[in-house]
């Protein structure tokens, strides 16, 4: 335990003691007295060098002698010898740390300050943050007062320990490697289901991106883009607004699992007189219970646009979701339906969908603040593409019903469920890729290589951008072979998988 002991004392417990120690009763009065004589508005020279170099005050081996003189200091506390401060255990010279350079000695008249004032100035002095007059007064005093000289040296050494925090971005892949390594060494009693792992990984990645954001980043404008019907559409918000959007939509999954709905916490039910009528009417335009409706309602519920304070609730929600699905069921539980307003997804797909959206919006955010952001790990990327491929037949059918896709005039009869039908081969290249046969004429039909009428090839990330509505079907870089109408319909259907 001995090695841990010094760490224990760093959690700020020392502050109160120091406060009592540093400011005994009566000192305030002295200090105020001294303060009167400090000329105001005389800041130190704008000197970029630090205080006291190696030859600076409080340094050197003759401290013992100096200390003797210090006992005559007029304001020594109490009768007799003031307690000697023990010498620092290690000097900065021993540690090899760079020492701040000596300050330019200013030559004004030294101030006459009382001992408690001089002592209180030691920190500022060590940081070269006093006026020239105060610096001179402190340095003169250090020649006379051993206790202050000891402390001065110790504080000046401490200045050498101040370092810019290393803001190294952690390699996002490290998380997976560390967790996998742990789980191999000790298999988990309660594992995270495989289908929830991409959500766990993507939310962690986004949270790490948000880590060092200041207010400027949180309020940076972001344009949410998606594809509706035949054309791209968008909605303006901020980085914080995007996180609020993720929070509101993942509330659908939370509701299905019996967890708290963030919309309740936001008070959307009685989002009274807030002057954000525009958002409210937008919410009214969306079918209730859909991601868009929930998002608009969540934004409208607050009088002010979202701020960085949305990060905590969002992160707590992601942790609660991962934890709950780990407990409530394991792999078999993934079939539980989650309502998205107009349609339902099984829980396992809903979480994959959330993981996908989390990545897509993390990219939006990264772009808005000019950070790099990598695609998900290959196996997660593959699962996301697989989800999109599985959703394509139903989407195609819905678009056909809405008159947005070519009617199936090629087939005079409907393909019955479970039978092979006309198919498009979707070939996705890249580490997350694979091949999918998309049945074209009925969601119930089975994709069949024997009935292949078209072949489309896309890069994995390009396909995801298409499915996110970030690339238009006309512009997607896709290799195409075969039935042009089928290809067009599938690419448009992929784009219309996107939503707010």
């Amino acid at each position, binding site marked *: 335990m001995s090695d841990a002991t010094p760490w224990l004392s760093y959690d700020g417990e020392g502050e109160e003691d120091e406060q009592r120690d540093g400011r005994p009763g009566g000192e305030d009065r002295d200090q105020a007295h001294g303060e009167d004589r400090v000329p*105001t508005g005389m800041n130190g020279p704008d000197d970029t060098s630090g205080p006291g170099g190696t030859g600076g005050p409080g340094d050197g081996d003759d401290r013992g002698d100096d200390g003797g003189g210090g006992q005559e200091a007029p304001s020594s506390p109490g009768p007799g010898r003031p307690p000697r401060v023990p010498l620092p*255990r290690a000097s900065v010279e021993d540690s090899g740390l760079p020492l701040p350079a000596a300050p330019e000695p200013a030559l004004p008249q030294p101030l006459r300050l009382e001992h408690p004032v001089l002592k209180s100035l030691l920190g500022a002095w060590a940081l070269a*943050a006093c006026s020239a007059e105060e610096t001179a007064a402190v340095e003169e005093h250090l020649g006379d007062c051993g206790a202050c000289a000891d402390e001065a040296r110790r504080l000046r050494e401490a200045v050498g*320990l101040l370092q810019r925090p290393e803001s190294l971005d*952690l390699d996002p892949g*490290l998380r997976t490697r560390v967790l996998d390594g742990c789980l191999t060494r000790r298999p988990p009693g309660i594992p995270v289901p495989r289908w929830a792992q991409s959500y766990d990984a993507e939310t962690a990645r986004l949270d790490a991106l948000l880590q060092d954001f200041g207010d400027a980043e949180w309020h940076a404008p972001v344009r949410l883009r998606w594809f509706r019907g035949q054309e791209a559409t968008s909605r303006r918000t901020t980085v914080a607004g995007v996180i609020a959007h993720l929070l509101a939509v993942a509330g659908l999954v939370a509701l299905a699992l019996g967890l708290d709905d963030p919309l309740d916490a936001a008070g959307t039910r009685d989002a009274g007189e807030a002057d954000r009528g525009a958002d409210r009417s937008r919410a009214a335009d969306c079918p209730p219970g859909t991601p868009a409706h929930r998002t608009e309602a969540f934004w409208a519920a607050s009088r002010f646009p979202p701020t960085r304070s949305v990060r905590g609730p969002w992160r707590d929600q992601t942790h609660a979701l991962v934890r709950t699905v780990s407990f409530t069921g394991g792999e078999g539980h993934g079939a539980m339906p989650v309502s998205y307003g107009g349609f339902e997804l099984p829980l396992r797909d809903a979480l994959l969908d959330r993981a996908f959206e989390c990545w897509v919006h993390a990219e939006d955010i990264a772009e808005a603040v000019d950070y790099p952001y990598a695609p998900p790990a290959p196996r997660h990327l593959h699962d996301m593409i697989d989800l999109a491929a599985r959703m394509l037949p139903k989407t195609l059918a819905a678009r056909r019903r809405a008159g947005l896709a070519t009617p199936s005039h090629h087939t005079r009869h409907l393909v019955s469920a479970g039978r092979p039908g006309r198919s498009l081969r979707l070939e996705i290249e890249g580490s997350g890729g694979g091949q999918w046969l998309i049945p074209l004429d009925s969601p119930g039909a089975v994709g069949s290589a024997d009935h292949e009428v078209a072949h489309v090839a896309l890069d994995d990330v390009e396909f995801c951008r298409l499915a996110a509505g970030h690339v238009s079907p006309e512009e997607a870089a896709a290799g195409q072979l075969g039935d042009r109408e089928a290809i067009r319909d599938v690419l448009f259907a992929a784009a219309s998988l996107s939503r707010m």
Partner: protein
Amino acid sequence: MAKKDAPPRWDRKMQQRLARGEAAALGELYDRFASLVHGLAHRVLGDERAADGITREVFAHLWEHPDAYDPRQGPLRTWVAALTHRLAVQRLRATETAALAESGRGSAEATEELERRVRHASVAARADYIVQAMPAPLRAALELAYFQRRDYRQTAADLGVTEDEARRRLRLGLQLLSTAHDVAAPGAPPGYGGAA
């Protein structure tokens, strides 16, 4: 920003969840402490891959031995920092010793040089941790006075406190920081069993 003032309840629950073998808890643990662990290890070892290795070891140790941490002994953050520190210093000493042996420079002088470097790295890592763990008002004052080169009157104005208070914070912050030099037994190889 990590939540610095999370209640000890979080520490207790985390320990119980790890003991139960909850993989989701391991993920949350990583998300909270990975940058602390990696940052300290990097400060000691000065090498990205070595810091990755220490990060793996620290989380594996806690995952495999969740009972090694006793919430009554103090915050988990402190415990994790101490464990990281010990493992990183151990690694530094091992690699440096191996390098010495290889180069055939086993002299007392070389060994002393090695100890000096270990001590230096150790103090630098402690200092980082102290700055992170000190009360935010002290950290803010040091940040202004040192990195932004504000004098203490400007610091006081920036922080909206009296000049007395600004001086007090600067002095107290440096006093806390100076304890980075207070290593219980410098040079003694810390045992694995100790805090862990």
